[in-house]
Structure formats: structure tokens, C-alpha cells
């Protein structure tokens, strides 16, 4: 997935159309990944739109039939970190932004247990959160996540494993809780929610 490949020929427009169709399908996933990185719905959509345009402009270097989802996620992630280096979000994720991580724009019915997980996620180091989201929610294999993050597969595995342990510890401690419920109650509600949510995974 490195950029160094043979000089791309100008693709025929039929390829453009196919590329665009694939890209459109990926937009919801790019938005979700962007949301998990920025923790802010507006900034996330800006980021996702930038990444979408970058992918479109670079379409000649994409080989149809390869993993376009991983390719676009890598573009989005690079965009996020380069903007971040340019000071867009220089400060460490503050608590307020952290609490918006992956928050739905308009979902009053979102179960309490999900808010708890959101807060627990926000306490993770950025590289652990990103690895866990890619593997645990984005549906990527460790190898794909490693390509997206441009690091070793073993590094991704260890980040995911540490993230899982840390999440569980945080949820057990109930350190995120704002309603004063004991950790045991929280855990039971998590398990109950998991039961409700269990089911075939789409996409």
C-alpha cells in the first residue's frame, strides 16, 4: 500500500464511475472513523470530506479490486495527524471533547451503557483507541489495521490488547460513572445491553 508504484495511466472514466460508487459506499464508515479520531461531529465531517477528496484526487494510484476501505482509512488517518501537527488540535483531548467521542449527533435513545463505554474509550491513549476501533469496530484484520496505522502487526495486536484490558478496568472501576451507580450494576447493565445488541453483524 506504499505510494511507490508504476506511474499510473490515466484511467478511463468507467473506472472513475466505479471508483466513485465504491467511495460513496465508504462515506458512512469514513465519517465514523473520523468521529472516533476527532471526538467532534463537525470536525469529523470536515476531516471525512477532506479525506474523500484526497482519495478522489489520488484515484489513479488506487488499484481497483484492492482494499479500498483500508486505503481510504489510511488517507483519512494521515490527514488527521498532519492537520493535527499543523496545530488544528494541538492540545491533548480535553474531557469535554473526549465525552463526545463517537457520540451520535441525534440519538436520545442511546443506551446509558454506551455512554459509559464512550467515556471509558476517551481515557485510552490515542494510539490504543484507534487500534481498538479499527479492529474491534471497523472490522479490519490486524494486518489491515497495521497498514492503516503504518506500524507493525505486533504493535497493533499489543495496542488492541492493552486497550481491551484498560477498558475493562475502567468499566469495572466505574471511574467514568456520573450517576453514582456501583461498578457491579454498571457491568450488569453492560452485559444486558450486549445481550440486546447481539446479533448478526452487518457490513
Amino acid at each position, binding site marked *: 500500500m506504499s505510494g511507490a508504484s508504476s506511474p499510473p495511466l490515466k484511467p478511463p472514466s468507467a473506472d472513475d464511475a466505479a471508483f*466513485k460508487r465504491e467511495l460513496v459506499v465508504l462515506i458512512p464508515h469514513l465519517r*465514523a472513523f473520523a468521529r472516533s479520531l476527532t471526538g467532534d461531529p463537525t470536525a469529523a465531517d470536515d476531516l471525512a470530506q477532506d479525506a474523500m477528496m484526497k482519495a478522489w484526487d489520488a484515484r489513479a494510484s488506487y488499484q481497483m479490486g484492492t482494499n479500498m476501505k483500508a486505503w481510504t482509512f489510511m488517507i483519512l488517518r494521515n490527514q488527521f495527524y498532519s492537520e493535527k501537527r499543523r496545530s488544528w488540535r494541538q492540545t491533548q483531548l480535553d474531557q469535554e471533547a473526549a465525552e463526545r467521542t463517537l457520540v451520535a449527533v441525534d440519538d436520545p435513545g442511546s443506551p446509558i451503557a454506551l455512554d459509559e463505554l464512550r467515556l471509558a474509550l476517551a481515557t485510552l491513549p490515542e494510539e490504543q483507541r484507534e487500534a481498538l476501533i479499527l479492529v474491534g469496530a471497523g472490522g479490519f484484520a490486524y494486518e489491515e489495521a497495521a497498514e492503516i496505522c503504518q506500524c507493525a502487526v505486533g504493535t497493533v495486536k499489543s495496542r488492541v490488547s492493552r486497550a481491551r484490558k484498560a477498558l475493562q478496568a475502567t468499566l469495572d472501576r466505574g471511574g467514568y460513572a456520573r450517576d453514582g451507580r456501583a461498578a457491579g450494576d454498571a457491568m450488569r447493565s453492560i452485559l444486558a445491553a450486549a445481550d440486546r*445488541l447481539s446479533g448478526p453483524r452487518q457490513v
Partner: protein
Amino acid sequence: MKDNSVQPGTPPGKRASLEETRLRQQAIGVKLRHLFDEVVNEPVPDAFLEILRRADERSSGGSGE
């Protein structure tokens, strides 16, 4: 999540706690996907498709056909 799978010959007490860990991790996994999917399932703002449409016009515009 084979990392947390219970080895044969594990003492029952340990086995139970490993099983609990596995269940909890499973629960976290389900919720994590749900969080992500909440955003995936939101309607895509028009701006996205509009931007793509304009990009398309830009790349095909001016080239004759």
C-alpha cells in the same frame, strides 16, 4: 478472541474468572461495534455527495465529450 480462551486443565476457580473476562470482553466488543455503527447508520450529509458531484464535473469538464 482466542487470547482469552480457557486452557484445558485450568482450575475451576480460575476457569470461571477467565470465562467472566471473556464474557466481559465480548460485551465490550458488541458495544464498541454498536457505537461505531450508530455513526455509520446516520444519514450521510448532502455536502459529501455534493462535493463528489462537483469533483466529477471538474474532472470531466473541459475535456470535450
